[in-house]
């Protein structure tokens, strides 16, 4: 059984998409040099985004039955244009996947091998919750990275989402 109600999972996924779009609007305006500049404690704005997207891609790949042995280098994308292309490709897969969810599917156990090759298994709903909360954790860091390069990060509180979508 998944450890989260489908109603809540869908709600978090809608919020996640809205918040990511708002942060992307701010990120799309930065210079390539600002995207890749190293920031203490935060890697870089680009590396944070790339890690976030790579994690989604990793899990979609595992759910699809393949087990990558390593995460790609989060520093590999050097321009906003390259990052945007990666974002569009990963999120198209993610949104198509989220649209297929139902109670039965989120309760289905997914088996995978972690990056060390060790076997693991968990209901799909728990994996999706991990991805959504991982996204929120790094959303905080992307805001910090935007602020560290002198930009004002957008407000992404759930309350704002709820008020805009009532």
């Amino acid at each position, binding site marked *: 059984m998944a450890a989260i109600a489908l109603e809540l999972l869908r*709600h978090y996924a809608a919020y996640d998409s809205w918040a990511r779009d708002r942060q992307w609007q701010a990120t799309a305006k930065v210079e390539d040099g600002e995207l890749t500049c190293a920031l203490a404690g*935060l890697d870089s704005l680009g590396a944070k985004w790339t890690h976030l997207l790579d994690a989604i891609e990793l899990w979609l790949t595992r759910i699809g039955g393949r087990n990558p042995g390593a995460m790609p280098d989060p520093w590999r994308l050097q321009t906003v244009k390259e990052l945007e292309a990666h974002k569009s490709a990963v999120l198209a897969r993610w949104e198509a996947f989220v649209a297929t969810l139902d109670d039965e599917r989120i309760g289905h156990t997914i088996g995978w091998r972690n990056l060390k090759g060790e076997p693991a298994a968990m209901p799909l709903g728990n994996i999706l919750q991990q991805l959504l909360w991982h996204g929120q954790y790094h959303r*905080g860091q992307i805001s910090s990275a935007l602020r560290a390069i002198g930009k004002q990060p957008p407000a992404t*509180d759930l309350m704002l989402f709820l008020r805009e979508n009532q």
Partner: protein
Amino acid sequence: MSLLHSIQRQFSHDAWAKARLAEAVHQLTDAEFARDLGPGLGSVRAKFCHTVDAEHLWHQRIVEGISASERPNDSRHGTREDFLHWYEQVQARKQALVNGLTEDRLRANVSYKNLGGKAFTQPLYELLQHVALHAAYHRGQVAACLRALGKQPPATDYIDWSRENPA
């Protein structure tokens, strides 16, 4: 799984993650805890205290019917001991609220005013979702502050907790 159980699990994970961060704070010196790490990061003290203060604010609105009109200074704690005492108090109150939830109560409306005095009415589960997401957002920022201090932040991923706490 019910909404009630889902929300309670989220707060169990949150409590576990916060306890790990609190332990990391305990390992710092008071000077490291308060150090301004520059634009974007602030300090461990300010980021962690902001999260705890927000939870106190929401607890007051939900349980006590009090809507504060201003946020306390998030750099007011002079020592880690002082802050950790505050964190434990707020955590205990929040846990009592979460333990006492029912499905009906979660879906019942709560009325409150925001810091600007504007009135809102929303179901309790929305307020608690906000509290949990706000904490996760700032957990990432506290971890970044720890890294900027040269420390390894603790793993707080949901999946690590969920492995030890299956539904």
